[in-house]
């Protein structure tokens, strides 16, 4: 991580009449990272985003790009900078007089010199990845809210920008498509290394894909740090906000949420320490989720993950808990179980995989390799939770593989 922030908001103030929306915002955005901006509705998250791209000019303070204030840049410099940006609007802002295809193609047609065939290829590519089939000729008014979001996302990413600003990219989407959008943002970010700034309410999903999180409240940044740090933050404003939004279940998979899972882990740990009741954990991770993503598309990939989680859920006892540990990881807590019993559980899970509906995806494509690794760790009385998890991660080995 470079020390110089790519974008810096320095004591930025914005007023609309009597109403002060931003009251001295200080924020640093680093190159190649995804920064999420969270906060209650109406606290100025979108206004902050619009300052970064230059749609709004601050009333006080300044916005710096690579250390240089935007206000002091010459016209040509600003123009060159704007080409690096892309913005996905909260209300999609699709051109209602253009069809879906024309909407996505517009930035390429107007700002690049690609031949028509190349523009077609790129647009089709993005439409396929975002599960936008048979809507080329439709107009925005004929689309559902969720579909409009995906068209807007395709339009924002079609130019392969360096910096992408997303204003609530998943609001109004169903859990599978929401996760597909998140995984797509994360996947693209890894592949092309863009810098992403996401305004979102999707907690905790957004923590999986962000490297940094900033929380805005009452016109100021009240927290800035990594997703792990914000989850452990002691500030009551931050905690109340996060806990208020976090549902006890993961939206996509239906398994327990991460915070619920962590609480359960702590309970088991104290049971072990006080009553010496053993417990084991199994960390299951789908190895090649990114490949599946690329071959079968984001929606198919998320459906597979959902099906796999369902399969795990069906194979555990009522006293067991499974929760989403990461984008592609599910952690199972098995109380009253030692490591050899946990191994038996893994074998049962593997055997039953053949009959499971994991591959029932809308975009079933051949050429997929589906492999899951499992790591088992039994907790010891003196072991720390962190080291237990690390143990399970280190011991992961191939547990199931399937080639289609």
């Amino acid at each position: 991580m470079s020390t110089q922030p790519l974008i810096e908001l320095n004591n930025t103030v914005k007023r609309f009449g009597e109403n002060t929306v931003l009251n001295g915002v200080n924020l640093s955005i680093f190159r190649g990272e995804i920064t999420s901006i969270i906060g209650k509705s109406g606290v100025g998250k979108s206004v902050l985003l619009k300052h970064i791209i230059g749609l709004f000019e601050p009333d006080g303070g300044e916005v710096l790009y690579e250390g240089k204030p935007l206000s002091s840049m010459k016209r040509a410099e600003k123009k060159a900078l704007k080409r690096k940006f892309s913005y996905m609007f909260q209300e999609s802002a699709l051109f209602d007089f253009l069809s879906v295809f024309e909407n996505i193609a517009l930035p390429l047609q107007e700002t690049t010199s690609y031949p028509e065939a190349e523009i077609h290829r790129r647009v089709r590519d993005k439409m396929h990845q975002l599960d936008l089939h048979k809507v080329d000729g439709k107009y925005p008014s004929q689309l559902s809210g969720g579909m409009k979001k995906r068209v807007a996302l395709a339009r924002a990413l079609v130019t392969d920008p360096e910096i992408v600003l997303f204003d609530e990219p998943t609001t109004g989407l169903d859990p599978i498509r929401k996760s597909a959008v998140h995984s797509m943002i994360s996947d693209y970010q890894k592949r092309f290394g863009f810098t992403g700034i996401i305004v979102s309410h999707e907690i905790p999903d957004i923590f999986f894909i962000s490297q940094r999180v900033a929380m805005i409240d009452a016109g100021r940044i009240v927290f800035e740090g990594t997703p792990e740090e914000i989850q452990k933050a002691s500030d009551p404003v931050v905690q109340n906000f996060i806990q208020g939004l976090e549902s006890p279940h993961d939206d996509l998979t239906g398994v327990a949420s991460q915070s619920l899972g962590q609480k359960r882990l702590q309970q088991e740990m104290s049971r072990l320490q006080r009553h010496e009741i053993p417990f084991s954990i199994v960390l299951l991770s789908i190895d090649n989720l990114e490949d599946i993503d690329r071959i079968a598309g984001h929606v198919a990939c998320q459906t597979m993950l959902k099906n796999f989680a369902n399969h795990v859920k069906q194979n555990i006892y009522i006293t067991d808990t499974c929760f989403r540990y990461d984008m592609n990881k599910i952690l199972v807590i098995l109380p009253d179980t030692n490591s050899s019993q946990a191994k038996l559980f893994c074998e049962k899970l593997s055997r039953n995989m053949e009959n499971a509906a994991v591959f029932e995806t809308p975009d079933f494509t051949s050429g997929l390799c589906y492999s899951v690794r499992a790591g088992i760790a039994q907790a010891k009385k003196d072991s720390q939770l962190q080291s237990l998890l690390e143990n399970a991660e280190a011991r992961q080995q191939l547990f199931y593989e399937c080639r289609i």
Partner: protein
Amino acid sequence: MDFLVTLKSPISALGQQTITIIRDLGRIFLFFCEGFVLIFTLPLQISKFKQQIYFIGMKSVFVICLTGAFTGMVLGLQGYYALLRVGSTGYLGAAVAIPLIREMGPVLTAIMVIARGGSAMAAEIGIMRVSEQIDALETMDINPIRFLISPRIAAALVCFPMLTALFDVVGIFGGYLTGSVLLGVNPSLYFSRVESSVNMEDITEGFIKAIVFAVVVVTICCFQGYYTHMRTEFGAKGVSLSTTRAVVFSCVVILIVDYVLTSFLL
């Protein structure tokens, strides 16, 4: 003291209003200049220009023919009875054609286009503004004025003179319909009077007016829509206010400009 304040407040309000009007006029002028200059930047936006020609020009043909015909017909009627009093109905062709070409054609064409196309322009651009479509263009580094306004200016500059010419021709035939067919003026006399009385200056004046009106209408209507967000009313109410203002302002300005131009061109 109170008296002084009361005395000063209308004066300061008047001054404030004048400053606002002058500032707005300056902004409208700069808006037009930018839109006009950007017509010629490469690559030329031919397809958008053609779409606007179709929208402003083609789609107005019917209404222009209709209004042109009835204006000509009423001029024929009124002209006939006025000329009858001085016993020179033979001059009906001139009495219909000259006011039609110099005055009625450009003014009524402009007003009809405001009603049909100008209001639509203001509403369309206004909706684009409130639904952040114009902001979206800016974030994509597409100049919204070049993308939205320039093709409309170019199309209006082409369409207005052509629609005015159409209005004139249909109007002259309308005058023939009432004057000759209904009231019995000799048709060949009617058309020969049209031919002999109308000279190139009349036609030039008509076209100059048409071009100036094109600039006025398209600039005011697009400007009102483009700056919808600067109003105190937002959303749908802002757009409706912009549309109303676009129509009322451009009609009033057309009539004022018409007087000024006529006094210079006569």
